[in-house]
């Protein structure tokens, strides 16, 4: 946690100076996300997968679906677990070893955005009540870093889930036995979309890139669902938001999220 370098400080000044003029360092509008490209089925042997580029940030999500034991108190529901990892090749500063707090937060925020939207109907993922359920694991790995991993991982996981196929298992002799029938679409309903905004000075910008990420005062990630409702939120960073700003961020997230949802739907189509 060395002091910020002079270059960092100069970049921040430049970014702020441009924002005062209503401009961003890469020419985007304040509420404009970077270009999103989504390749589904990038890992054909997984049950679902997607490779997402959000500007120069790149994430791969692979979904594995397999029998598991239910939690003791929810024997009538399948499992959904979403993880995230920064691979060391994604940036020179990434360290191997146990996950840092910011990576744990990343994984938990992406997980909650999807979980709280009820995108996956876990009640359909039961093999034998209280004994065996279907576990859906969406593992994100970051392969190139240029800011805003929250959204990149969220889109990768969502696209991978939307195109996942689940095998069927039968409960035979106290064991889950794979049914040879064709895998079917994973049961999903709404499409959650996370939109991360940074506050730099008094400006709110959507989808901060790496330089903007380093310069921000605070950030907020808001996930909305297909009905235009808000289903999860996480504030971060070492400063605060006014109540008006929070309301404004809510509106932006629903509006921008609706556009990004179309990109996710197109990716879903392309995978079928």
């Amino acid at each position, binding site marked *: 946690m060395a002091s910020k370098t002079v270059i960092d400080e100069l970049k921040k000044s430049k970014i702020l100076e441009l924002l005062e003029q209503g401009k961003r360092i890469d020419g985007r509008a304040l509420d404009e996300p970077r270009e999103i490209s989504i390749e589904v089925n990038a890992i054909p042997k997984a049950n679902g997968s997607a490779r997402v580029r959000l500007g120069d940030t790149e994430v791969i999500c692979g979904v594995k679906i397999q029998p598991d034991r239910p939690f003791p*108190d929810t024997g009538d*529901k399948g499992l959904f677990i979403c993880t995230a990892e920064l691979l060391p090749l994604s940036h020179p500063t990434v360290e191997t070893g146990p996950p840092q*707090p910011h990576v744990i937060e990343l994984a*938990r925020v992406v997980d909650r955005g999807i979980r709280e939207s009820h995108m996956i109907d876990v009640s359909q993922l039961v093999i034998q009540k209280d004994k065996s359920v279907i576990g859906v694991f969406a593992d994100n790995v970051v392969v190139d870093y240029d800011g805003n991993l929250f959204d990149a991982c969220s889109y990768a996981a969502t696209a991978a889930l939307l195109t996942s196929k689940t095998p069927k298992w039968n409960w035979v002799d106290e064991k889950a036995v794979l049914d040879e029938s064709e895998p079917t679409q994973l049961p999903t309903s709404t499409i959650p979309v996370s939109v991360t905004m940074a506050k730099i000075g008094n400006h709110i910008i959507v989808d901060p890139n790496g330089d903007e990420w380093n310069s921000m005062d605070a950030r907020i990630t808001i996930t909305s669902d297909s009905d235009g409702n*808000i*289903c999860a939120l*996480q*504030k*971060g960073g*070492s400063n605060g938001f006014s109540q008006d700003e929070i309301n404004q961020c809510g509106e932006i997230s629903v509006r921008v999220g609706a556009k990004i949802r179309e990109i996710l739907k197109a990716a879903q189509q392309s995978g079928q």
Partner: protein
Amino acid sequence: MGGRDATMVLLDENGIRCDGRKIDELRKVTIKAGGLKNADGSAYIEFGDNKILVGVFGPRDVHPKHMSNTDTGILRVRYHMEPFSVTERKNPAPSRREIEISKVIKEALEPAVMLEKFPRTAIDVFIEVLQADGGTRCAALSAASVALADAGIPMRDMVSACASGKVADTIVLDVNNEEDQAGQADMPIGYMPNLEKITLLQLDGVLTPEEYKKCVDVGVQGCKDIYEIQKKALADKYFGNKGD
């Protein structure tokens, strides 16, 4: 929060909640500043059935040195639950949830603490949840602010915190454990009452855009109520009105 159901009566026809409160009413909250001998500052909060102890050390040297910052002090926060604080005994190893909450509380406190006055040092906030009952992160954040003040750390403002949420299709203040389990949404808020800034905000659960605004508003009002209790705790210790 996947397991919400509606078998419990969360809100009756008179607008009374499962624990007898009105929709805009906080649970009983008491804060005591000080109490620990060895900590530089401390606070104890009872927030409903939550019981949380906070100790603060610092500013003090950082080991290893390369973790320190020559331009400013650093704030370190550990949120930790005792094995006996929850219904089923908790494994003593720190969970991913505890690590995330530690980070969220740290970032909620940073805007309030004048860290720039203490370059190269660290201020450590240790939060111990003795008994949990829903809303521990807000209770912990409120107590941590008082403990920092008790340690004499210069602050721009207090951070006051409580949660709002949606229960039985209604926006309510201060979601308790039963409401969190069976309710529809939970929104913890941390707020600096004088600087009017929200420094902690999370949401789990579905809200319409209108409910979202309402929820923020209700939560901010609750934070202002908490702020009064925080001030009283410090006044009780430092100006001797313990008899109140």
